[in-house]
């Protein structure tokens, strides 16, 4: 049984007041809050086990290394990677995409080749490809979206060709909530010989992901959007591809043998983990994943659908509100604009009622351009949000309307 009260009690930050009102945290697409078990895992590491990993023979270093590697194992299991060698820690989604663009892209994308992305990508899945394409003389192609904020699959199909080297697609859009049909995208991309990168920054906390069933080449995400710490994320890549890729950064940990003449690189996954990693972050990430596993995606999916439906029903009858992003398959995100109130003013006004939402372009300026709005207001939901909080949001929106009436 899904017990929201019990779940809320796991998140100490939620019980505070903002300007004398209970905090209503609806900015989960930006980052989620952290349960006590994650906070405890991070402080336990610093209080008891802090040491560098992979390089000490002393007890602390062995404990730190064991916990760091245990986190990798939890993550491998969660995404059903073939082995821990396919799990590379990064600073987050952004660094993971840059790693792929620089290492895999640098070696495999040549002048005349094409990279295909979609119109709903986050800037972090646009700019690295733009940079690479400019550098090597390749072409960036963009698959269009429709008025509901869904990928137009016919157009996607016709943009895909044997020139396409890589397809980069967001699993779930942070600006619109759209869930993309990545199974068929991966199948189609593979049929023309392209590799596929899935940006799972938003999706990984809401949808079960099995990289083997999906057969995706690269899946990337950030811990901080999955109840874990900031500054840590992961790249799950097929071992057969990672093996062929040159290192991303050089330094300690990524080597086996160094002389001034030549360096022999370490095995996977360490080849891509130069320098002292975010050890506490990785341990917290592992704990966050266990937290998700304990609740289970069946329960999470059911609950989040229920809450989105509740919020969407309210949005549909709210005078002067226009939803941005009404895909049939969507999750957890209510993006909107209002006739009389600019999103930025909305954000400020509802904040005074304790309601935290995001106002802006959500790092997806092309999406704003498509819908011809300068910005949107966005409420994004998580497992700990309640119907009462959705009511508080709409009451605050009404107040904003009254101020500008």
């Amino acid at each position, binding site marked *: 049984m899904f017990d929201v009260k019990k779940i809320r009690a796991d998140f100490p930050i939620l019980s505070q007041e903002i300007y004398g009102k209970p905090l209503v945290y609806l900015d989960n697409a930006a980052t989620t809050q952290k349960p006590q078990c994650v906070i405890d895992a991070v402080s336990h590491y610093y209080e008891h086990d802090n040491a560098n990993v992979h390089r000490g023979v002393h007890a602390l270093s062995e404990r730190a290394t064991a916990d760091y590697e245990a986190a990798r194992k939890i993550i491998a299991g969660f995404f059903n990677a073939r082995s821990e060698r396919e799990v590379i820690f990064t600073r987050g989604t952004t660094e993971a995409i840059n790693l792929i663009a620089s290492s895999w892209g640098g070696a495999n994308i040549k002048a005349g080749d094409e990279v295909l992305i979609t119109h709903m990508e986050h800037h972090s899945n646009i700019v690295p490809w733009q940079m690479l394409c400019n550098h090597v003389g390749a072409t960036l192609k963009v698959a269009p979206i429709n008025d509901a904020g869904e990928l137009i699959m016919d157009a996607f199909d016709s943009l895909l060709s044997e020139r396409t080297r890589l397809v980069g697609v967001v699993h779930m859009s942070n600006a619109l909530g759209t869930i993309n049909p990545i199974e068929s995208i991966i199948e189609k991309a593979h049929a023309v010989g392209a590799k596929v990168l899935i940006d799972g920054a938003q999706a990984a906390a809401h949808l079960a992901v099995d990289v083997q069933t999906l057969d995706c080449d690269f899946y990337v995400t950030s811990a901080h959007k999955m109840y874990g710490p900031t500054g840590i994320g992961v790249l799950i890549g097929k071992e057969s591809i990672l093996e062929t890729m040159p290192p991303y950064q050089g330094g300690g940990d990524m080597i086996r043998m160094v002389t001034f003449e030549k360096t022999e690189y370490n095995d996977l996954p360490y080849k891509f983990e130069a320098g002292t990693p975010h050890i506490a972050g990785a341990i917290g990430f592992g704990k966050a994943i266990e937290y998700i596993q304990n609740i289970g995606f069946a329960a999470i999916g059911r609950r989040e659908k229920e809450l989105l439906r509740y919020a969407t029903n309210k949005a549909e009858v709210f005078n002067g509100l226009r939803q941005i992003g009404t895909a049939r398959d969507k999750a957890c995100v209510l993006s909107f604009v209002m006739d009389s*109130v*600019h999103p*930025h*003013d909305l954000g400020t*006004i509802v904040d*005074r009622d304790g309601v935290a939402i995001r106002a802006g372009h959500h790092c997806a300026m092309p999406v704003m351009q498509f819908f011809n709005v*300068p*910005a949107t207001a966005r409420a994004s939901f998580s497992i700990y949000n309640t119907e009462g909080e959705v009511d508080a949001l709409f009451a605050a929106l009404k107040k904003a309307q009254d101020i*500008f009436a």
Partner: protein
Amino acid sequence: MFDLRDLYLQVIVDHNKAPRNFGVLKKYNRDADGYNPLCGDKLHVYVHVNDDHIIEDISFEGEGCAISVASASLMTEALKGKPISEFPDSFERFQHMVTSDINEDPDEEKLGKLAVLAGVREFPSRIKCAVLCWHTLKSAVEDSHEIAKTE
């Protein structure tokens, strides 16, 4: 506690709804673009400075939140007819007002109606909205062709 009504004063709401000096000037000799990347506010300011170095006419167009639109509207009202030589002082005075300590009362005598924007001090993320037009005008007056930003 600081109330929302202190930020969204009626004057600000009015200027947002019906901005003064909105649109392109028929005749202008300075203009500049301003952009606030955080919220997507975009402004363009037009100024006509006559032979006596007076701001004979001034206008703006663009889109933005209530604070940035009202601020631009109030700015154009405040500066129209003033000598261009006074602009640096006006700029500094406004900049000081929106960044000074909350307990410091704005100099209403010198600031006039602009003092209604003193409330943004309580809302740090909104200060940029209030100063965007001023930075934009500054780059127009200084004739730099760079897009003004409020960083």
